[in-house]
């Protein structure tokens, strides 16, 4: 194998899983199932996606009521309107935080995540610790991220067990009335799109 892949970072070659994946990749290339450019395209696809895409969707929803309604009813179409490419076999659904309800996303079975929009999930999202505790003690998990839902707020956990990928539409923080869409997008963190935290000024 060529050994100059941009996704090959220090330390990766020591993991048995990494070694296995490299072996499978080498076989697929050797047998002509995949070509080197296809592998690079796949990596480029993932790297082109990031939480900044989610932040764009949220900021637009904060300033445009009609867009917000579309995002909550048909998130794939809403994403397309902003030039994002939500094409992926899975459904994409956005759930709204309100003064009464706070949403938290998890995938207890594996690591389902709206990758077509947000890219790869953070490592903690895939950890056994998060996956087991987010359903059982979501409030304790959020406290560890530095967020405690205010008194009277209901917590709803979404376990993405099947064909739907979920993203949270957080509430616009108070004191941001004068901010434009781009500034607002800058407040939207990846953690707030999963629901373990909220955007802050």
């Amino acid at each position, binding site marked *: 194998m060529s050994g100059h892949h941009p996704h090959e970072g220090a330390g990766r070659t020591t993991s048995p899983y990494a070694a296995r994946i490299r072996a499978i990749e080498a076989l697929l290339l050797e047998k002509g199932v995949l070509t080197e450019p296809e592998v690079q395209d796949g990596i480029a696809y993932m790297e082109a996606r990031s939480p900044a895409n989610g932040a764009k969707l949220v900021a637009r929803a904060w300033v445009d009521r009609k867009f917000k309604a579309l995002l909550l009813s048909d998130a794939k179409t809403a994403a397309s309107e902003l030039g994002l490419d939500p094409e992926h076999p899975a459904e994409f659904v956005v759930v709204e935080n309100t003064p009464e309800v706070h949403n938290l996303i998890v995938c207890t079975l594996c690591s389902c995540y709206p990758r077509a929009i947000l890219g790869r999930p953070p490592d903690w999202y895939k950890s056994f610790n998060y996956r087991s505790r987010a359903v059982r003690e979501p409030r304790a998990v959020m406290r560890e991220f530095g967020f405690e839902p205010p008194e009277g707020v209901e917590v709803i956990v*979404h376990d993405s067990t*099947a064909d739907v990928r979920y993203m949270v539409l957080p509430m616009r923080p108070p004191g941001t009335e004068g901010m434009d869409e781009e500034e607002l997008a800058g407040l939207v963190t990846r953690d707030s799109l999963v629901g373990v935290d909220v955007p802050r000024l």
Partner: protein
Amino acid sequence: MTFEPGAWVRVLSSEKPGHVRTPGYLKGKAGWIETLIGEFPNPEELAYGFSGIPKRPLYKVGFLQADLWDDYEGPAEDHLYADVYEHWLQPVEGGTT
């Protein structure tokens, strides 16, 4: 569609081996049908190279956290949604929200 929104259902306690999309902590638990999400190829077959056809109805099912965990910390309203295939659900007699 077999189940209408608001209907109470119970998740089967099946120990079916292999690739299933019903997490263990929901098995045997009762909840309500929130909505029908749609119909999708059966992941339990797709995982082994089969077509997954006929497609199976997939529901968003709600569960009260207090019904899932004896020691749940939080208000009684806190709940959880999971996406569960119809063949994992059975009706709860007389149950409705």
